[in-house]
């Protein structure tokens, strides 16, 4: 099928299947899935700039479906999501500026690659350690369904006790915390999103659990809601620059709509630590892709 905006010939079945796969991952883990969508679009000959922009547009659609389903399941904290969106957009702008600075210095690829590998591996290592420790504890073994306990929970509780004005109460998440802590967490996620590309859900979802102390199911749903806002902003920005083929994103979204629902419903059958343990391979896949692009010398 010919897509006139990007001038690419791509099978719609392939696009729908890629969307379906990313939809499942997004619905279950609350991530955008750009580490798969980007290379998948590049693999069928779409230019890099179109792959990045179109992927963002597709993320918006997939996140709407998954967030709607999570909201029906009571997994979305709208107040937290709206506050985080402000920090994320600010962070994404700073991250994009940082990339421009590195571009001028001439070593952007190496710096971004090394930083991203270090971050991906650190997140995976920490999460595998924490979730295994939690699951092997007596309290962790007894958890079923949406129950959530973390052996690292004392750190989040200590952060929640930091009395820095203004304190925000989040009734849905059952947390009272300083507004600044939420903004810093969102800003850091946005910074990596602007710096490394994609939605940076692999950083934001674990940060919400371990730093803010949000239960895993709520972190997944709220992250998806937050992604709708920040990815819409990114899509608009890329579309103005001529980097979005919306027809490709619309086709991908037909598969993602089913996948996202399956992913979101599946979270109901897993306790928090099990979702966190299953999350571990995602950042590692991201690291493997970056290492591969470093070895072959060009982006996938």
């Amino acid at each position, binding site marked *: *099928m010919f*897509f*006139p*905006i990007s001038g690419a010939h791509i099978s*719609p079945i392939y696009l*729908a299947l890629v969307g379906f796969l990313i939809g499942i991952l997004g619905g279950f883990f609350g991530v955008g899935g750009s580490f798969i969508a980007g290379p998948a679009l590049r693999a069928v000959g779409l230019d890099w700039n179109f792959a990045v922009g179109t992927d963002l*547009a*597709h993320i*918006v*659609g*997939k996140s*709407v*479906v998954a967030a*709607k*389903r999570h909201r029906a399941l009571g997994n979305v904290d709208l107040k937290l999501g709206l506050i985080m969106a402000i920090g994320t957009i600010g962070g994404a702008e700073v991250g994009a500026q940082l990339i421009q600075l590195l571009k001028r210095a001439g070593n952007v690829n190496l710096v971004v690659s090394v930083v991203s590998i270090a971050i991906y591996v650190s997140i995976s290592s920490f999460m595998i350690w924490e979730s295994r420790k939690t699951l092997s504890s007596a309290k962790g073994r007894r958890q079923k369904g949406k129950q959530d306990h973390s052996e690292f929970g004392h750190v989040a509780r200590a952060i929640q006790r930091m009395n820095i004005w203004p304190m925000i109460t989040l009734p849905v998440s059952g947390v009272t915390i300083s507004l600044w802590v939420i903004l810093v967490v969102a800003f850091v996620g946005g910074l990596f999103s602007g710096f490394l590309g994609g939605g940076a859900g692999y950083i934001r979802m674990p940060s919400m659990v371990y730093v803010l102390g949000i239960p895993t199911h709520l972190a997944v749903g709220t992250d998806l809601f937050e992604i*709708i806002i920040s990815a*819409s902003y990114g*899509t*608009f920005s890329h*579309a*103005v620059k*001529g980097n*979005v083929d*919306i*027809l490709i*994103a*619309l*086709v991908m*979204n*037909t598969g993602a*709509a*089913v996948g996202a*629902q399956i992913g979101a419903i599946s979270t109901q059958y897993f306790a928090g630590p099990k979702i966190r343990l299953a999350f571990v391979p995602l950042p590692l896949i991201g690291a493997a892709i970056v290492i591969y692009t470093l070895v072959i010398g060009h982006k996938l």
Partner: protein
Amino acid sequence: MRFEAKNLERMKKETAKTLRAFLIELVVYAVLVVAYFFLVLHFLGGWLHHLETRHRYSYATVAILLIIGQAVLLESVTTFLLRMLRGRSE
């Protein structure tokens, strides 16, 4: 022992029902999506291409509205299909 076996049998039947409903949903959904592909790409393709080359800000706004609108529509369709098929199979 007999109670557990009965429970297992009931669970197997329920899983089979859900799977059947899901497969039917996928087939109905695929037919709808194929029709939709032709409609959208045929009618909107040229217009969107024109908008993208001439009016970037309008294109960016329309792009976001389209992707969100389609997502809301597809979510409603899949939820409706699943509810209808499950309701029929139970």
